[in-house]
C-alpha cells in the first residue's frame, strides 16, 4: 500500500510538470492557433538554465547554494520566456494564419535548439553574436534611399546572408582553440543536485513518507497555476489576452495592441515551459532530447482536457501522470503479489514506460469516441454559432 501511495505521489508530481507545460502550450495554442512543436525544447532550455544556475551558485558557498533552485526557477521562467518572445517576433509572427507552415517551422526550430544545446561552445556563441550584430548594423545604417528601393528586401536578405557567413567564418577561425571550442554541455545528459532542503522527507502522514521533491513540485505547479488563472481572469493584460484570443480583428479595432499581446502571451506560455523544465531536473537527469518525451504528453493532456479549460487540464495531466507511474512502473504487481495469473500477465504486459503510453492512447481514442471535444467542452451560444 505504501508503494502504491508513493507511486501516486510520483504520478502527481509528473502530472504537475505536465500541467505546467501543457498550460503554456494551451495558452499559446488558444491565442494564435499556433501548434508550437518547439514547446518541449523550451522545457529543455528551462532545464539547462537550472543546470547553469546551479553551477554559477556552487562556488558561492554552502549557504547561498542552498537557495539556488529558487533563483533557477525565476531565471528559467524569464530566459525561456525571452526565447519564446524572440521566436514569436522573428518567426511565428510571419506565419500567422498558416498553421501547417507554423507546424513545420516550429518543428525545425526544435531541431535547431536540440543541436544548439549539444554543440554550443564559446566560439559558437561569439560567432552568432557577431553575425546578429552585423546583420542589425547593416539594417540600421543602410541609407534611406536604398531602403525605399524596390529591391531592398533582397538586399537586406543578402546583408543577413553575408553577416551569417562572416559569423560562420568567425566560428571556424576560433575553433582552433581547444578552450573556446569546447562544448558547454555536449550531447550527454546532465545532472542537477537538489538542494538539501528538498532532499529527503518532509514529514509523514499515517506512516507514509512525503518526499520533499515531489511535494515541492506539486506545490510549485499549484501556485503557478493559481497565479496564471488570476492573471488571465483578473488582470488587465489577461482581459486583453482573452479578448484577442476570442476575436483578434475586433480587439484590434477597439484599440488593443495585438502584436504586444501576442508577444506577452507567447512569453508567458514559454516561461511556463521553462519552469516545467526546471522542475524536471529534480526528477532525474536531463538531456537535449528531453522535449520529445514531454511534447506528446502535453498534446494528450490538451486533447483530453479541452483547450482553454483549466479544470480539464488539471484532471487530464494528473491522470496521465498517475497512469504512467502506477502502471508503467509495475508497482501494482509488487503491491499486490497475489493477483491471479491471467490478469497478472496483462498488467505485466503494460508495465513498461512505452506500453503505458499505448494504454493511455487506447484510453484517449476510446474517450474521444464519446466526448470528441474533451472532458469539459465550451458551452453556450458563442460555441454553436
Amino acid at each position, binding site marked *: 500500500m505504501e508503494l502504491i501511495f508513493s507511486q501516486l505521489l510520483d504520478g502527481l508530481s509528473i502530472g504537475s510538470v505536465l500541467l505546467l507545460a501543457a498550460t503554456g502550450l494551451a495558452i499559446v495554442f488558444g491565442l494564435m492557433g499556433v501548434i508550437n512543436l518547439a514547446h518541449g525544447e523550451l522545457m529543455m532550455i528551462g532545464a539547462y538554465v537550472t543546470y547553469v544556475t546551479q553551477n554559477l551558485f556552487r562556488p558561492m558557498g554552502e549557504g547561498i547554494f542552498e537557495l539556488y533552485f529558487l533563483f533557477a526557477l525565476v531565471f528559467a521562467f524569464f530566459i525561456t520566456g525571452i526565447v519564446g518572445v524572440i521566436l514569436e517576433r522573428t518567426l511565428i509572427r510571419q506565419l500567422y494564419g498558416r498553421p501547417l507552415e507554423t507546424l513545420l517551422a516550429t518543428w525545425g526550430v526544435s531541431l535547431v535548439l536540440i543541436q544548439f544545446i549539444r554543440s554550443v561552445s564559446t566560439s559558437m556563441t561569439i560567432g552568432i553574436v557577431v553575425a546578429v550584430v552585423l546583420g542589425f548594423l547593416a539594417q540600421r545604417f543602410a541609407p534611406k534611399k536604398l531602403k525605399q528601393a524596390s529591391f531592398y528586401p533582397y538586399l537586406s536578405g543578402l546583408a543577413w546572408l553575408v553577416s551569417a557567413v562572416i559569423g560562420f567564418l568567425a566560428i571556424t577561425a576560433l575553433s582552433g582553440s581547444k578552450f573556446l571550442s569546447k562544448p558547454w554541455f555536449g550531447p550527454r545528459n546532465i545532472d542537477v543536485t537538489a538542494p538539501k532542503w528538498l532532499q529527503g522527507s518532509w514529514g509523514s502522514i499515517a506512516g507514509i513518507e512525503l518526499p520533499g521533491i515531489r511535494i515541492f513540485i506539486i506545490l510549485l505547479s499549484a501556485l503557478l497555476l493559481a497565479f496564471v488563472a488570476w492573471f488571465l481572469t483578473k488582470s488587465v493584460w489577461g482581459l486583453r489576452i*482573452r479578448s484577442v484570443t476570442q476575436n483578434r480583428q475586433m480587439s484590434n479595432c477597439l484599440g488593443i495592441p495585438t502584436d504586444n499581446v501576442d508577444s506577452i502571451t507567447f512569453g508567458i506560455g514559454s516561461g511556463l515551459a521553462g519552469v516545467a523544465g526546471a522542475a524536471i531536473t529534480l526528477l532525474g537527469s536531463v538531456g537535449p532530447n528531453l522535449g520529445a518525451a514531454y511534447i506528446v504528453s502535453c498534446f494528450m493532456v490538451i486533447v483530453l482536457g479541452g483547450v482553454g479549460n483549466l479544470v480539464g487540464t488539471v484532471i487530464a495531466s494528473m491522470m496521465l501522470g498517475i497512469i504512467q507511474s502506477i502502471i508503467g512502473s509495475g508497482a501494482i504487481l509488487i503491491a499486490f503479489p497475489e493477483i491471479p495469473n491471467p490478469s497478472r500477465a496483462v498488467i505485466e504486459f503494460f508495465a513498461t514506460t512505452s506500453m503505458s503510453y499505448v494504454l493511455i492512447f487506447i484510453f484517449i481514442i476510446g474517450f474521444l469516441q464519446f466526448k470528441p471535444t474533451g472532458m469539459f467542452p465550451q458551452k*453556450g451560444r458563442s460555441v454553436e454559432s
Partner: protein
Amino acid sequence: MVQATAPASTKTILRASGLNVYYGESHILRNVDLQIPEGEMICLIGRNGVGKTTFLKTIIGLLEQRSGNIEYDGKQLTSQAPYKRARAGIGYVSQGRDIIPRITVRENLQIGMESLPGGMGKNRHIDPLVFELFPILEQFLNRRGGDLSGGQQQQLAIARALLGKPKLLLLDEPTEGIQPSIILDIERAVKRIIQETGISVLLVEQHLHFVKQSSFYYAMQRGGIVSSGPTSQLSDDIIEEFLTV
C-alpha cells in the same frame, strides 16, 4: 444620375480621396471620394455587395488601400494598425457586431475604454450614460457577451464604441436583423450622442427611417460613389435605386 456634391460644412473630420481597394485581385472600391463634416451624421447607402463595408474596413485599417488617401483629423492615415486608429479616436461598430463572446458584458465595456489615453488599465469606471441609453446592459453586466440576443449585442457594440469617446463613429448596418423597438432605441441613442458630444458619425444603413436622420448621403454602386447630396433631397427614385426597401 445626380451630380456628386460634397457637404457644405467647412471643417471635415475625415476626407477620403481617390481610394482604390482590392481583395486580392478583385477591384472593390473605385476612386472613392467622401467627406465627413465635424459633428454631423453622414450616411452611405447602396445595395448589398457594393463595397460599403469594405470602405469602413479601409478607414479603420483592417484593409489597406492600393492607392488614394485618407485624411483623418488633419493627418494622413497610411498603413497604421487598427488599434492605433482606434486610439486616435475612430470608433467602429462592425456589421457582425463582433461582441467578444466568452467574456462578460462588463468586460466587453471595459475593452471599449482601451482606446482612451492610458488604456483600460487607467480607465475602470464605466460611464453611466451608456446604461441610460441602453438600460438592458446594466441588467446583464455579468452575463457573457455571446449569450445576449442580436439586438442586445448591437446595443452592447454601440455602447462599447461610445465608451472609447470617439471623434468619429463608424456604424455598419446597426439595424440589420433587429426588432423595430430596438431600432428606435438605437436611433435615439445615436442622435442624442451626436447632439451632446458633437462627434461625427458615418452610418452605413438600409433602414430608411434611420437614413433620414442623417444630414448628408452618399450613394454607392459597384464600388464607386454615384450620387450624393443633403438627405432632405433624397428622392424616391434614389431610394428605390439604392436601398433595398
